[in-house]
């Protein structure tokens, strides 16, 4: 998901909330069908009618605007230079990871983030080269949505917002906090209101995120029947991995006392 919202669009959020309310919620399966209830909880998409409508809008924006821009970007700018842009933006946004590492009580990670910032901003030429990763401290990303998750706040519901892509209500709220409290570009532009800085930054992040995720999402689209549902499933698992910081999934496969869902299927006689 894209994780920056231009300051001038913040006042539109109530419009989004109103649209969610008006489009209604997905129908919960009856409690008498526990398997269906479990499946409903797994996809956690209480706003599905709204989300599908927004997804359609986003697919339209993708086709007419995003895809041409991103493919131009990918064809004009060579791969190493695009990596440089990614590195630069990551380095610029280090305070977000630093603050959220501290809020999650992970002092080691906060320290590593400072170390990376110092090394990459200097030897890495303003962050374009990720020297710190070569030296053994790879990039790590923490945001306020992850912090809230660590604090025990649930997803709310899956949420799809055009341009921003898939997220959850919790992570959308987390993004707002990161934007206002921890993003150095906000600190810089606060009070000065040079709208172009905000928009240029937003545009750079947008193109960077889309250029790096497009191969994977295109593949998912080509291999799925219901792309919306496949993207939701894939996004939620990937996000859960980010929140776990890459640790293996706590086997949802084998709840205590249940049979192995990957048990052998008896051969037919």
């Amino acid at each position, binding site marked *: 998901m894209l994780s920056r919202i231009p300051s001038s669009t913040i006042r539109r959020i109530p419009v989004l909330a109103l649209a969610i309310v008006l489009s209604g919620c997905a129908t919960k399966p009856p409690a008498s069908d526990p398997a269906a209830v479990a499946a409903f909880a797994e996809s956690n998409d209480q706003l599905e009618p709204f989300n599908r409508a927004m997804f359609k809008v986003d697919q339209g924006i993708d086709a007419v605007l995003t895809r041409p821009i991103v493919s131009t970007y990918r064809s004009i700018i060579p791969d190493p230079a695009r990596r440089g842009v990614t590195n630069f933006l990551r380095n610029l946004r280090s305070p977000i990871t630093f603050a959220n590492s501290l809020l999650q009580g992970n002092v080691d990670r906060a320290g590593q983030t400072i170390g990376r910032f110092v090394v990459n901003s200097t030897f890495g030429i303003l962050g374009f080269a990720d020297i710190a990763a070569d030296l053994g401290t790879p990039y790590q990303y923490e945001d306020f949505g992850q912090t809230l998750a660590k604090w025990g706040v649930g997803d709310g519901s899956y949420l799809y917002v055009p341009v921003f892509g898939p997220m959850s209500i919790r992570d959308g709220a987390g993004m707002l906090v990161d934007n206002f409290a921890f993003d150095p570009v906000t600190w810089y532009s606060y009070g000065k209101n040079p709208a172009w800085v905000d928009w240029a930054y937003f545009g750079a992040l947008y193109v960077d995120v889309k250029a790096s995720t497009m191969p994977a999402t295109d593949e998912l689209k080509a291999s799925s*029947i219901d792309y919306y549902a496949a993207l939701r499933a894939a996004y939620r698992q990937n996000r859960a991995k980010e929140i776990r910081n890459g640790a293996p999934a706590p086997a*949802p496969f084998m709840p205590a006392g249940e049979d192995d869902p990957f048990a052998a299927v008896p051969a037919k006689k």
Partner: protein
Amino acid sequence: MTISRRTFAGLSASFVALSKAAFAQDWRNSPTGLVEKFAEKGITDILGANITQREKTDRFRVLFKDFFDIPSIGRFVLARFARAATPEENDKFASLFEDVIVYTWSRRFGEYKGQSFKVKDSSADGDDGALVNSDIVGNDGQSFAVAWRLRKRETGFRVVDVIIEGVSMAITYRQEYATIIQQAAGIAGLLAQMQKQVDDLKAKVG
């Protein structure tokens, strides 16, 4: 009457030696060995082989059926709907699901550019199974974490799930298909849509 311990040890040692010589397929009983073998065969016999796309697809189907437990994956993916479906529907699903995987994977064989594959470690998982962690490293140095969920079957280990960057293939299909079954026309609707997808993919892959 008892067989002396020594005789027994000698007998079993020669039996082990014999079976090794006869089958030389120890890798089937080693989680990391199985995954390495799958990657090795995939790269040398399919991705890097100088054969037509159709031959690649055919070879992949053989490899896929040999290394993956497709019926078990199909059962997992259909989950609660498998119980409600007729035997014919379940059979139809199993064969379509195999086709979906074979054609979606073979669509991308042409994109292979010498990425390297490294098995990292393996841990216990589920009923007598294992989770093997591996990395696929591209030429630009970017790597993807790929985990392989295995289960022990009579003939050795079989793959039941592939998890790329935390995204499980089996769970993703399960959620997608559950949505289609609920929103479209039940199992029959899903089967019809899968058939159409397979036809489209076949036309593209050739």
